């Protein structure tokens, strides 16, 4: 038993820290910390910075342009980036499509698409969810009908994050209607320039814009854009969701959120004392800190298990549930900490002398509402419980 990183891991951690110190612009980090909507240029700039170092997709194999990082190294990298308030890598190409192509793509697809992900030629978005089929992917209705060398796609996707910046989309489509619902699904790549595609923004609860609806009307896509075999999409989808679930946990983001709330509570004065001296507030914070310390260790146990150094059953689902609950509890505390000052909409409504909170805290309420999504997307926490229950009870 050893709960500490190995010497190699520690050296790698130091390397990441140094890289972030030298390459991450402080003003950009401050905007990330404040929960600002980043510009396309900011996201692309950080992508390029990482790619120059070979770290944009460090968990890919070396021959594909990655570093072949194991689970622990990848975790160290993600955690340091989160703690430093680096922009989050846009995950759809790097963390979703990339692994899918590596596992299911043809050599030609890999050769064509992977480098374009690394150098940001392609900005991918995802076409998974549909209206009326949130966590129940098997019921999806977007049809792809084979006509000669094309599929003709009709239907609608939703919750397409950052689709406004993307030039390509990977989709789950229905290619057969017989048999079990999940047996007739395929995974296909679509160029967003193809005629018949319309993207419409969805305004979110807190007023922001990060997701879209995508409408497909007689969209023709060459059959060579299929990934894997026709009707193999369900297998690919599960593979991808497993990856997504693990990354939603984001222990590093939780640690960063904890530090932020602690700092707020130290700086905010209320009723003649610092908020951190309010025993009720401090008790809430301490309870979350303890849960988070445990989650950190649970996460390390999962990583070690992935490298054969421990065991943990149903880890991704459990971590997804607990990780999102903790993150939401931290968002809740940050919002509370502001008291009446959490009110202004949008958070930039009052600036300069008039501002009610430090810029990095002003969006606390908006973040709280926006992050209610964490327990809903990537397979809602209820779906995760169903998955674990099946294992426990054979139910």
């Amino acid at each position, binding site marked *: 038993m050893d709960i500490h990183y190995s010497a190699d891991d520690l050296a790698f951690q130091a390397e990441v820290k140094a890289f972030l110190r030298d390459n991450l612009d402080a003003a950009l980090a401050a905007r990330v910390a404040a929960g600002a909507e980043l510009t396309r240029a900011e996201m692309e700039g950080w992508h390029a910075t990482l790619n120059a170092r070979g770290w944009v997709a460090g968990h890919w194999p070396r021959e594909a342009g990655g570093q072949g990082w194991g689970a622990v190294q990848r975790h160290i990298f993600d955690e340091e980036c989160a703690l430093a308030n680096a922009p989050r890598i846009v995950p759809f190409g790097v963390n979703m499509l990339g692994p899918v192509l590596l596992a299911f793509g043809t050599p030609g697809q890999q050769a064509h698409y992977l480098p374009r992900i690394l150098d940001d030629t392609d900005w991918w978005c995802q076409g998974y969810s549909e209206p009326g089929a949130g966590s129940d992917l098997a019921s999806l209705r977007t049809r792809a009908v084979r006509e000669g060398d094309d599929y003709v796609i009709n239907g609608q996707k939703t919750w397409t994050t950052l689709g406004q910046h993307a030039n390509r989309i990977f989709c789950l489509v229905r290619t057969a209607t017989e048999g079990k619902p999940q047996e007739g699904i395929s995974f296909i790549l679509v160029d967003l320039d193809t005629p018949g595609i319309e993207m419409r923004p969805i305004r979110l609860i807190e*007023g922001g814009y990060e997701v879209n609806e995508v409408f497909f009307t007689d969209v023709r896509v060459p059959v060579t854009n299929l990934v894997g075999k026709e009707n193999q999409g369900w297998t690919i989808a599960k593979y991808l969701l497993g990856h997504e679930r693990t990354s939603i946990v984001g222990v590093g983001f939780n640690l960063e959120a904890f530090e932020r709330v602690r700092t707020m509570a130290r700086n905010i004065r209320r009723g003649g004392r610092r908020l951190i001296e309010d025993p009720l507030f401090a008790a809430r914070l301490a309870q979350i800190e303890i849960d988070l310390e445990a989650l950190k260790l649970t996460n390390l146990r999962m990583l070690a298990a992935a490298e054969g150094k421990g065991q943990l059953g149903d880890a991704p689902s459990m971590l997804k549930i607990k990780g999102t609950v903790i993150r939401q509890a931290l968002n809740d505390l940050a*919002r509370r900490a502001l008291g009446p000052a959490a*009110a*202004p909409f949008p958070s930039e*409504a009052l600036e300069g002398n008039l501002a009610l909170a430090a810029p990095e805290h002003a969006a606390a309420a908006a973040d709280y509402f926006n992050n209610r999504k964490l327990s809903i997307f990537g397979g809602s926490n209820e779906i995760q*419980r169903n998955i674990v229950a099946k294992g426990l009870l054979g139910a």
Partner: protein
Amino acid sequence: MDFTPTDDRRMLTETLDRFLAAEYPVEHRMKIAYDLPCHDAGLWAQLAELGALGALLPEEAGGFGGAGFDVTTVFEALGRTLCPEPVLGALMALRLLQAAGQDATDVLEGTRRMALAVGEADGSPELDDIACTARDEGDGWRLSGRKSVVYGGPAAHAFLVAARNGDALGLWEVDAGAAEVAGYAMIDGGGAAELLLSDTRGRLVMADARAALEDALDWGRLALCAEAVGAMDRAHALTIDYLRTRKQFGRPIGAFQALQHRAVDMGIEIEQARSITIHAAGSMGTPGQSRAVSMAKSLIGRVGRQISEEAVQMHGGIAMTWEAAISHYAKRLVMIDHQLGDTDTHLARVMAAYAA
């Protein structure tokens, strides 16, 4: 003991519900709620005409109600439709004018809108922490300082401002035109303002206003509790409706027992919220008022968050969108806890009695 509403209050409920449903549908609400001054003057006049303001004061002060249950009747209706009009500020101002023995006819008639400026930038709910000052200059009073998150501020013609004059905590009236008013919409809709006073002229309303201020804040808290109960009822109804109609895995999601039990727990907590609000309303004007109000505001803050989060979670992704009504109920239910003292603040007040 009788928990049936009087005929007058039942009629007021029906009148307001009908009016708000017809004249303040969700599309209109969204337009008003986020655009300064977050107020529709025409509808305000109609609200006044229908009695939404008159119900807030007793007859001797020019109204026709003024009991705790009158106030909860009005605010439950406002809560059910998420009406963003500045009735909260009007209520607290009216109570203070009544306490000062001043005529409030124009406020009651809806021709003049007033807001209460009490809290300051540190967000403290304690009157002891007020730092704004008032100075008698011979030719009148001058006020200095900053008042923060003044509810209804963008639409107010005048403010009642709590300020310090030496050891005394007094109340002054300041015209909106005389001060610097920085208005903004709130994340859950409705307007608030920063009020910047710099040797700003004010008219003395009460020299010692501490007790009257605490009382007015209690009325404001009671109103928020009732508004929350109205909003919870709607949020629960929307959720139940969603559970009955939305299908997943081939059946309505309301057929899943885990969601059923959580929907039931929501209902139980809403009844508790209604009960504690009734308790507070029935305690107004008694020695138990302040404690009853703190109990109510603490429970409402806790349960409001639970109802909001559960309603969102059971709706799933759709609740994350601006387009879905539930998202706005969810925001209001959470943000009510940021107004006039949150759940922990009021819990601490309840606890304070134990040490005695």
